[in-house]
């Protein structure tokens, strides 16, 4: 007990206590800057958040972003992993190179993509111009701004899916492919009946991790678009930040954060049950 108590204390102080404290504040009208006692208001914050049109709008933006980014990353990540797994030479070097974006800080990624996507001076529009195409307002138009966020997130996090998919692909027993070759099975047949079913559960875990990460996206939005134009790229996390720090409505922000945690927990549970069924099947 004495041996683990420092770790236990750290866990309680840094993780469990803030969560319970936020849970308590979520039932109050407390403001961190205004001070004064916290008044208990029951589920007032929760009902206000769930009924808020602003929150619904941010939830839809977040959903589009999560689905778009994770789908694109999964398709690209798996495709790259599949191509790398078929190589016998230079696999390690290629894998390392593809992993570089994932190792960068999201703030750094956001900043240099902001320069690259600048409508006037950015390298992307310069390349489009040299191809005879017009300028695109990547970060200041409603549709292109969200697409830009998805593309940048995909650039950074596709390697994560690739890495896990590659681990799954290299773990597929070779004798299965050898048996299929003896039966003169086509490439597509082998992929469909051997590769995909065996890698699928691992890939789904990668998708789960990425979806959770994408759901709480903040840094790229903050750097690239600041939620704009207007509020059209404001995600739920970005909105929580505004509620928490612009008006210092700590109680509301706590309830908002707790609701986001609950959404992730519920969706993860459903997902894990599906994954377990898949394994049992």
């Amino acid at each position, binding site marked *: 007990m004495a041996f683990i108590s420092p770790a236990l204390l750290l866990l*309680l102080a840094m993780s469990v206590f803030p969560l319970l404290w936020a849970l308590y504040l979520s039932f109050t009208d407390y403001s*961190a800057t*205004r*001070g004064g006692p916290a008044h208990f208001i029951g*589920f*007032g914050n929760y009902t206000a958040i769930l009924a808020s049109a602003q929150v619904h709008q941010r939830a839809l933006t977040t959903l589009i972003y999560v689905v778009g980014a994770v789908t694109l990353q999964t398709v690209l990540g798996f495709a790259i992993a599949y191509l790398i797994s078929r190589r016998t030479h230079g696999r390690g070097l290629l894998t390392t190179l593809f992993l570089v974006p994932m190792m960068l800080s999201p703030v750094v990624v956001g900043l240099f993509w902001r320069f690259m996507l600048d409508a006037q001076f950015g390298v992307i529009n310069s390349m489009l111009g040299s191809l005879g195409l017009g300028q695109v307002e990547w970060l200041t138009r409603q549709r292109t701004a969200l697409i830009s966020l998805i593309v940048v997130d995909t650039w950074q996090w596709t390697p994560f899916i690739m890495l896990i998919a590659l681990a799954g692909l290299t773990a597929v027993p070779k004798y299965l492919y050898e048996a299929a070759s003896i039966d003169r099975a086509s490439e597509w047949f082998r992929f469909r009946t051997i590769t995909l079913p065996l890698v699928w559960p691992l890939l789904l875990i990668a998708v789960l991790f990425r979806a959770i990460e994408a759901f709480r996206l903040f840094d790229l939005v903050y750097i690239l678009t600041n939620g704009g*134009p207007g509020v059209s790229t404001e995600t739920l996390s970005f909105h929580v930040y*505004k509620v928490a720090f612009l008006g210092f409505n700590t109680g*509301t922000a706590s309830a908002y954060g707790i609701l986001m945690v609950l959404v992730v927990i519920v969706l993860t549970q459903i997902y894990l049950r599906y994954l377990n069924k898949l394994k049992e099947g």
Partner: protein
Amino acid sequence: MRHSKRMGQVSAPGRKVQLATAAMLLVATTVAACGDGQDDGAKASAPKAPATIPELTKDPLTLSFIWFDWPPAHALEAFANAEYKKERPNATIKVNTVPNANWHDAMFTQFAARKTDFDIAILDSQHIGEAVTNGNILDITDFVKNNIDVEAYNPYLLAAYGQFPQAETGKRDENASLYGLPLLGDTWTMIYRKDLIGDKPPQTWDEMISVAERCQAEHPGVSGLAFHQANGSDAAAVTYNTVNGVYGGNLWDSKTRKIEGVLNDAAGHEAMDVLVNKMKPLTAKGSGNWFIDEVNAAVAQGKACIAFNWIAASGGLLDPKQSTLGTTREQILDKLGFATLPSQKTNLVPLGGMGMHVSAYSSTANQAEALNFMKWFERADIQKKWAAAGGVPSRTDALESPEFLNAGPFNQVYTDSVPRMRDMWNVPEYARLVDIENTNVNAALNGAKKPKDALDDIAKEQQRVLDSGSRKGGGGL
């Protein structure tokens, strides 16, 4: 099947002990955290600073400021360390800087923690209400009475950078409390290309738009206008407020706290229409997220006929290393002109700049040093030296002095603009009000909302924020 007991496995009583210990630790942590929270209520209003400066320490002391990262912040640190040290050799001035977008959060999260790593907060004039209501800064009314010559200032400047509740334009309430003193005055200047539109700047807003339109048509690759449109800080909001003022609109009725119906009246809608439908088409493509640096870059690279920017941020335009307009300052000045904003129905200009405010959580020795620094900084001779060092002073004698007027080509613009200034609301809800305005104006400028809808939404949402005092739950939404 029985399993043998493994090493390290805890018996049932052992588990109870563990759980009890964990619960005790949790309770202890909670109580420790609650301890801070219970002090909160005791400091519901701004504490008073002493009327006279207490005895200053002879020990080495660092007086820390917090500001956002821009040239005046570095100028202040260099100036104060060079000049203030002559009188207080044991004092070192440190101006901590944060990115502009984090400025409010950096100050107010520390205020929220009731502990600051700065002694003097350089607040935007609109932040005063929030800081005063929360008791974060000292009430220096008595200190000002005893130590500052208030007659030496345009009354509105003293009011704007220190008074709460807010002053009406051009009026200072002599009986109101003061919470800060001016550090850096500022307003917008119109920057125009003399080589493209001529030496005489446009006098009215309509004339300015038509000149910009003609210039853009005659010079392909150069946009007619460049101004702040970003949805961060107060960028797009100040732009709209400026046009609103020029076209005779009002931001609110401060006495009745009414925004809806005031901001979005006929004048307000006309201003929004001018901004979105007449000015925006004259800007560069993709300029919908431009703020101070981007506007300066466009001017320095010769990509704009007319631009609007804060005077305090315009110094870099004259640096040949940063400009394509000339290889010397004189060559650049042959092409660039600086003028006060054109007028239309009124001649209002936006008030910028910031004041110095003493943190309520600073140590007694540092608060005393901060008050001494403020008294020193507001002296007539120091204000002129600050002007010569590139700062924008607030005392009338310094504003009219050759030291200031000869220090930069835009300084005359500031002196001429002082009687024309209008500020935003400095109520505690400022951060939310400005965010609502920023995001909606930015949406209108970038085609995400119709101008009329954007203005009506601003008025409706801002009114809801002002009226939300009695709301039970969901504050901030």
